[in-house]
């Protein structure tokens, strides 16, 4: 089987994208007759060498563009890939990846699935699984038409180092001539002030529904800072506008995998839980002994989260300077 991974080197999350792809390839595409390569889009010349080092396959097509605009990328991909015998295109889990997977499949008359956890290729069809029903159920699907275009499930990157290869085969393309699609009259990127640091955090404190107002959110953030944890929130809190959206944890936010994750005042809806299920150790603190989160945590405390956390700060201070 021939597969290609597609990376967006214009985005600051490129390392995560590459990590996801690398991990997915080593988990799913190890049989001897698979041949893989990467197509990497980028715009900044000076980043070229750094980007190449992230490539998880032995050969890469480097495509230089002016801006990662979906309509342009689709045009570039369909042009480049015309007549190629690629069976499978792999896209990272981000917004761009899922969009490209679906639209490329449509244009190339193939089939697509987004947020895929696992695949298996039988020679005539691709079997792929992903979560459905708001993270309650695992669905298995058959993709019948080639090429198969899939985007990976969020949070599938691990810390596995990418082999830097000596003999990387690099082919370069210049597509800076592709113009903005006409429907865009003007555009302005607003980069995230601070890159989302939740995906790779080791120690995470999350506030949920139990937070009654912005002050509670600020209180919890302060506790997180004191104990050296990163701070996240569940969807209802983010939707109340009490913190910036990038702190949101769950299927529509960050998928984390902390060594220790403390969840204060959240009931634990499945879509939220998806964002912390890869944690090594989960602590739930809330006042509802019947909340679903208690069962899906390693330990749970039924009590006022403020009283518990205040004391936790104290005892950590006593134990070691923080």
């Amino acid at each position, binding site marked *: 089987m021939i597969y290609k991974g597609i990376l967006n080197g214009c985005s600051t999350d490129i390392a995560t994208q590459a990590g996801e792809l690398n991990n997915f390839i080593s988990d799913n595409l190890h049989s001897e007759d698979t041949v893989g390569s990467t197509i990497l889009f980028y715009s900044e010349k000076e980043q070229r060498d750094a980007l190449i080092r992230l490539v998880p396959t032995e050969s890469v097509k480097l495509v230089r563009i002016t801006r990662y605009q979906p309509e342009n990328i689709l045009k570039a991909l369909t042009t480049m890939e015309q007549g190629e015998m690629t069976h499978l295109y792999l896209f990272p889990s981000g917004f761009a990846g899922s969009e490209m997977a679906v639209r490329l499949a449509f244009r190339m008359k193939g089939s697509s699935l987004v947020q895929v956890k696992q695949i298996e290729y039988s020679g005539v069809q691709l079997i792929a699984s992903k979560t459905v029903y708001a993270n309650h159920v695992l669905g298995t699907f058959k993709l019948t038409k080639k090429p198969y275009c899939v985007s990976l499930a969020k949070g599938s990157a691990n810390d596995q180092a990418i082999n830097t290869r000596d003999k990387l085969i690099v082919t370069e393309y210049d597509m800076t001539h592709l113009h903005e699609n006409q429907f865009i009259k003007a555009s302005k990127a607003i980069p995230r002030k601070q890159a989302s640091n939740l995906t790779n955090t080791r120690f995470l404190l999350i506030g949920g529904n*139990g937070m009654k107002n912005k002050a509670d959110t600020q209180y919890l953030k302060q506790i997180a800072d004191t104990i050296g944890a990163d701070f996240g929130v569940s969807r209802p809190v983010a939707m109340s506008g009490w913190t910036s959206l990038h702190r949101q944890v769950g299927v529509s936010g960050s998928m984390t995998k902390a060594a220790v994750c403390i969840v204060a005042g959240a*009931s634990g809806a499945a879509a939220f839980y998806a964002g912390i299920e890869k944690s090594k150790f989960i602590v739930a603190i809330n006042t*509802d002994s*019947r909340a679903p989160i208690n069962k899906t945590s390693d330990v749970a405390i039924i009590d006022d989260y403020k009283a518990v956390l205040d004391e936790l700060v104290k005892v950590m201070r006593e134990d070691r300077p923080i």
Partner: protein
Amino acid sequence: MPLKRKQIVEALYNIAGKDHVVTDEQILKESSVDRFRRFEAYHGVYSLPMPAAVVYVKNTHDVAAVIKFANENRVNVVPRTGHSATEGGLETALENSIVLDGSGMNQILAIDTYNMQATVQCGASLQELDDRLREQGYTTGHSPQSKPLAQLGGLVATRSIGQFSTLYGGIEDMVVGLEAVFPDGGITRIKNVPRRAAGPDIRHVIIGNEGTLCFITEITVKIYKYFPENNQFLGYTLDNMKTGFEILREVMVNGYRPSVARLYDPEDGAYHFSHFAEDRCVLIFVAEGVKPIADATATAIEDIVDRHDECVKVDPKLIEKWFAHLNWDPANLAAEKVEIMETKNVCNTTEISANWGIINDIYEVCMQRVRNEIPDLTLLGGHSSHSYLNGTNLYFVYFYNVVDCKPEEELTKYHLAIKKIIVEETIKAGGSMCHHHGVGKHRTHWIQKEYGSSYYILKKLKSAFDPNNIMNMGTIIPLEK
């Protein structure tokens, strides 16, 4: 000279220990209100007098000491446990009140399955007690929507009722005996016997006193055998509330005792049942108990309903599942808060009761008047959820968009204006203005009309047991200005 705040707090430190007295400003604010003023509270607006402190008592002795101190120094005491009241009963109407919180007295003291009774402290959670009982094949039979939050002391103090009341009765039918502390600091115990004819039933001085006469510290309730496997669920849609009331009446007067007998009008019904009852009333029954009784009850109810052509049966599973998802829990309440803040769409309720002969008239006139007189309503409906041999209750449910008014004006503009219509029409027709939430502090205006000439007895109770006016002033009986 009334005591200063500092003096009150000092005295409480001495009685209950510093660790059990809370004077944190935010806690005091939250303790000055209950769910009645939740819209204001969500906005951080607290307009009532601030309490001096919240005391978390550990035992009856401390309760007695606190109340005795308050009585001697004329300090208002607001008793509470689960803090889920909805009618302002937990509002601190006077400056520097003591909020006496019994939620820490939460032990289940005894479950006696031979004599079929359970004894608990006032702060015992009803959910926990009932879960414990159900594990052993028993139940309290008490299941109000507030079950996950409410505690036994508060439930008894407000004359609570649960969803299965048509079989098990209200809390007044369950309470066997009690322990309570009266304003002079005296601890009284009423013993646990099946019945007695030894003068008036003094339990009723305590049950429903809403903290205005005494503080309840211990409760013994009956327990029942629990046979969920025999439960039979019945559901129907129908055109008219009048027909529904007739069916409820027929079921009751013929002596059948379903645990649940509920009738929803189309508006209230749509809120719960839009997936199977579009623009129709909904009638629900649950028959429970030992199998022969549950089966016979269900069959008889089906026969009665079958005689009314407009009733259409629905899949019983819809009813069974609906019950499984009915109660409040902390997550619901938090979600409700976010939604209210966003949409400014608030829900409130008023519950009344009346005899069969007038219930439908009250329903119709209230619906019409509220709809015509109150602005910005987004839902106005009602249901009957507790039926008796001689009548039933009506639970009016209303949602409105808060338009052009400050958070603290919301109640006057909407909730209280609606309550006024419902209460006045009910009393005029001969019903009772309070079915199961208690009087609280916002129906006191009509308490004399509610009682008529028997108001004498109520007033006498208050002056006899609380001569210094320290127990939850402004509740049941209005504050004298």
